[in-house]
């Protein structure tokens, strides 16, 4: 088997175990002067961490070994590409899920504690939310939460972590009455807003919650009037009653716009199961009554000619005043932002993306990736699915340069890739006649985003993967199969966290 680069740097071969890796690292570290040679130290440290990750992953997934160059003895894997390996390696799985059997056993007690607390809470919460007219507000939910957590039993940290994970899964699963208050209360009590890294430690659900919080932060930054309008719409979407023609005309495009820009957060605070019905009803309207899509605006949209004239006059006026004051009319230096525009793609990118991953290819890809910005905004233009795919493959083959491995945006790349895989799987299963009855919702999910004009900004190309994947990721459940929270246990929820499209 090919020796990973990290082991080569430590002068080891693939027979190395954890102890050998540590010894090699220790020996090399003693020879380096950290203060005088920081670059050397960093390189050594990256190699060490990669080697440790490699050896731990090897131990855990000994059965599902990836077929690498040369030996192809590994059993045929059912899923198309390495399913679990990249995730376990790149994102520390919630540390309650680590593989060692001893850990699992000692966790049982913590699990029991957490389960009890969780069940207590969900019972109280269900009782409080039974009356849909009088849902508890954030303070009431927070009080309920704190009461649950106040018991002495939860001094045990592992139990608290499991409980936290359970809440995250509960929220990500989809909206239920009262969840909008629950989301705010849970975020406050567990302080998810203060510490992003803590969220990432919760695994995949943590990433989703982080995205939702990011979207929420962006939403809160909108101007109060626009925000109010949208808040009303979000509240409206929670009610199952069908919209009438007037409502559709005034609000439908706004809704699509909202959904395109805040999908994760909306999935938590409002009922996205109602969205297909709105889309159906809207498509059924005659074209003239459908209302106007919301256009992206880089410049103010002027639809009337005298608006144009007014604008020109104003600009001239301001410039005139500026000249009088002797100052150039520059806006105050605003804050930096990383942008990536597709016009800057290098010519060699398609070739690069088509090649099989190798250390040189991966170095090149990582250089491009770093240079073109890695998107703290979920709106950033991606360099394409195949680019993401290539990054995921490089990471899977353990040849991605370690220095950027913990970048949160890399996590987003992998998340996108993952969701794309899920979507592909769903598409495949849609065609399977045996699954037809269960699949209706999902079948619709794959169709209508393509059908409707997206109504999103012209900057982001209609992103099929994104809109298709999100419903899948939320598992908008068939009403007949809706899980009632009273039967929800921690196990049921946390087992969801590995996205399995159909729990058979």
């Amino acid at each position, binding site marked *: 088997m090919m020796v990973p680069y990290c082991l080569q740097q430590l002068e080891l071969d693939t027979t190395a175990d954890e102890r050998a890796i*540590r010894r090699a*690292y*220790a*020996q090399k*570290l*003693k020879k380096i002067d*950290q*203060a005088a040679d*920081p*670059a050397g*130290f*960093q390189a050594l*440290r990256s190699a060490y961490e990669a080697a440790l990750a490699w050896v731990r992953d090897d131990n855990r997934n000994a059965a599902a070994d990836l077929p690498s160059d040369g030996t192809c003895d590994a059993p045929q894997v059912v899923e198309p590409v390495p399913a679990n390996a990249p995730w376990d390696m790149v994102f*520390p799985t919630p*540390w309650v899920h680590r593989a060692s059997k001893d*850990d699992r056993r*000692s966790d049982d007690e913590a699990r029991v504690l957490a389960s009890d607390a969780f069940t207590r809470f969900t019972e109280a919460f269900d009782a409080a939310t039974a009356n849909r007219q009088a849902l508890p507000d954030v303070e009431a939910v927070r009080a309920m939460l704190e009461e649950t957590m106040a018991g002495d039993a939860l001094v045990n*940290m*592992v139990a*608290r*972590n499991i409980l936290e994970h359970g809440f995250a899964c509960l929220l990500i699963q989809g909206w239920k009455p009262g969840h909008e208050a629950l989301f705010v209360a849970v975020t406050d009590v567990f302080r998810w*807003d*203060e*510490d*992003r*890294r*803590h969220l990432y*430690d919760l695994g995949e659900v943590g990433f989703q919650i982080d995205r939702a*919080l990011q979207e929420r*932060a*962006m939403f809160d*930054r*909108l101007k109060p009037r*626009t925000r109010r309008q949208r808040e009303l719409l979000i509240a409206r979407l929670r009610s199952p009653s069908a919209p009438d023609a007037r409502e559709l005309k005034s609000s439908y495009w706004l809704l699509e*716009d909202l959904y*395109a820009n805040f999908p994760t957060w909306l999935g938590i605070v409002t009922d996205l199961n109602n969205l297909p019905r709105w889309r159906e009803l809207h498509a059924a309207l005659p074209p003239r009554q459908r209302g106007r899509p919301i256009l*992206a*605006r*880089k410049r103010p949209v002027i639809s009337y000619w005298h608006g144009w004239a007014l604008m020109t006059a104003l600009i001239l006026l301001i410039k005139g005043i500026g000249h009088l004051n002797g100052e150039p009319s*520059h*806006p105050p*230096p*605003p*804050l*930096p*932002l*990383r*942008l990536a525009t597709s*016009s*800057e793609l290098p010519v060699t990118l398609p070739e690069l993306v088509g090649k099989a991953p190798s250390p040189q290819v991966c170095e090149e890809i990582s250089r491009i990736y*770093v*240079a073109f*910005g890695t998107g*703290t*905004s979920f*709106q950033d233009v991606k360099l394409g699915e195949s680019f993401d795919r290539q990054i995921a493959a490089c990471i899977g083959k353990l040849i991605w340069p370690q*220095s950027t491995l*913990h970048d949160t945006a890399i996590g987003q790349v992998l998340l996108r890739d993952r969701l794309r895989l899920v979507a592909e799987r769903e598409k495949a299963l849609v065609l399977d006649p045996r699954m037809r009855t269960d699949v209706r919702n999902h079948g619709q999910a794959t169709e209508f985003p393509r059908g409707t004009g997206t109504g*999103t*900004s012209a900057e982001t190309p209609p992103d099929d993967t994104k809109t298709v994947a999100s419903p899948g990721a939320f598992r908008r459940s068939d009403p007949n199969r809706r899980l009632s929270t009273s039967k929800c246990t921690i196990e049921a929820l946390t087992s969801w966290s590995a996205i399995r499209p159909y729990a058979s």
Partner: protein
Amino acid sequence: MIIGIDLGTTNSLAAAWKEGRPHLIPNGLGEYLTPSCVSLDEDGTILVGKAARERLQTHPDKTAAVFKRYMGSERTIRLGKRLFRPEELSALVLRSLKEDAEAALGQPVTEAIITVPAYFSDAQRKATRAAGVLAGLKVDRLLNEPTAASLAYGIHQLDAESRFLVVDLGGGTFDVSVLEIFEGVMEVRASAGDNFLGGEDFIACMIDRFFEQTGAPVSLKADAAFMQRLIAHAEAAKRTLSEKPTATIEVLDGGQSYSLDLDEPALEQICAPLLQRLRAPIERVLRDANLRGTELDKVVLAGGATRMPLVRRLVARMFGRFPECDINPDEVVALGAAVQAGLSMKDAALEDVVMTDVAPYTLGVEVAMRLYDGSFSEGHFDPIIDRSSPVPISRVKTYSPIRDRQRELELKIYQGEARLVADNILLGSLKVRLPDLPSKDCAVDVRFTYDVNGLLEVEATVQKTQHTVTVVIEGNPGLLSDAEISARFAALSELKIHPRDRVENRTLLARAERVYQQVRGQERESFGAEICLFEASLASQDRRRVETARQAFGELVDHMERVLRVLPQAEPQG
């Protein structure tokens, strides 16, 4: 010879690595702990240590304490006619320790390792280094306090592999670290803390409860003398509760006496919110290190406040075992600094040992994110260096301006974990001039370099022009420039510290003055006479006479303190 110095909020210590072990260095009084207090004496000399602490009650306008809290800020303290910056006061303490070390080791000392709380910001660290320079010491390295404590413990068990948690609760700060030892490598896995949680917060809670329950008038809070006495009593009660089941805080004010009875459960209930705050950094540090409580081999304590049974019980409950404190929690940080001194001197005994530390908090810049309607939302935090990354570390990220033809890019550097910069701490800012080009050609590479001392260097390079700007992080008023440091060094050198050989007598006199202030009536007069007699014998300069007089007088002062229930001057509260 490099020495290790623990420059603490309440006490400072010096230690050295000799003969394969760390040794503490005694001060002029023969003690290891030197209170971090500075006082201006009547004849214009500077008193450092216990003598100064005694004068805190008698001459508060000429004495300063707890100035570590103000390091990195612009606050000045007046002693007599002169204003001092916190760096200068710390420098005086360091100078006194330096003289003690030279006397004990018999050789000149010019380099030192100084410890700082792991959570100290960039400005605070630079101020500490400036203090060292002002004291005539080259600061070889700034060491994080919990790392130092780990070193002190780890040095005894280098062959075994072990993981342990260090809980350091000092007078004013709380630091937690996870250390892993293997193959002679001492590696800090993660570090967290709270800069505003310390022993004195426990006292503050007790005092609040005192005022609530005894009905003492709130106006007394403004009475400095009363508050000092109250604090001393509260501190004593806290210590008594460690040994006995109940304690009483009783303070006199004029004729009126106020008392409050306390027992352990009451104290626990009073301090419950503080105990809650102790928990959060511990959990964070374990999560960052990806460990669970059961995987730790032991939990060790550092810092005087960990003597409280409250704190020990909390730690025991969290980990299911009692924490260890084999090494005196007051001394452990200084001993660790000495170990690092030995490592820096490349001592033969430590040939096979190496230590790595981590960044205690995330560092990043402020960015704006594009909203879906094309406008920009400012005030978001983009991390560049994650917390618990091993140091030294250097990371680069690229940023672009929002608009075309921007003149300059302002990078605001923040420290913290939150999503929005409003919830993080601003370290400074940096302006980069941009070429007159459209925004996509104006990408700027920003490199953050965090070195082993925990000092941040920021370098911004405009890609197109390769024009580089390195920061001296501006916008931080608390820092001294090199020129200022030289000027102040000259000024400080003129100040004389009280001669070492006479410090014992001076301390005794200061103590006597404090006791004199607290007694009344006839006892006061007779005590006053005794003080005059002692001063006279000091003036005689006859060594034997001075020694006998000192011994007799010392016993008298002890007697006064005991019998008249005049409490010794407790550690000053900020």
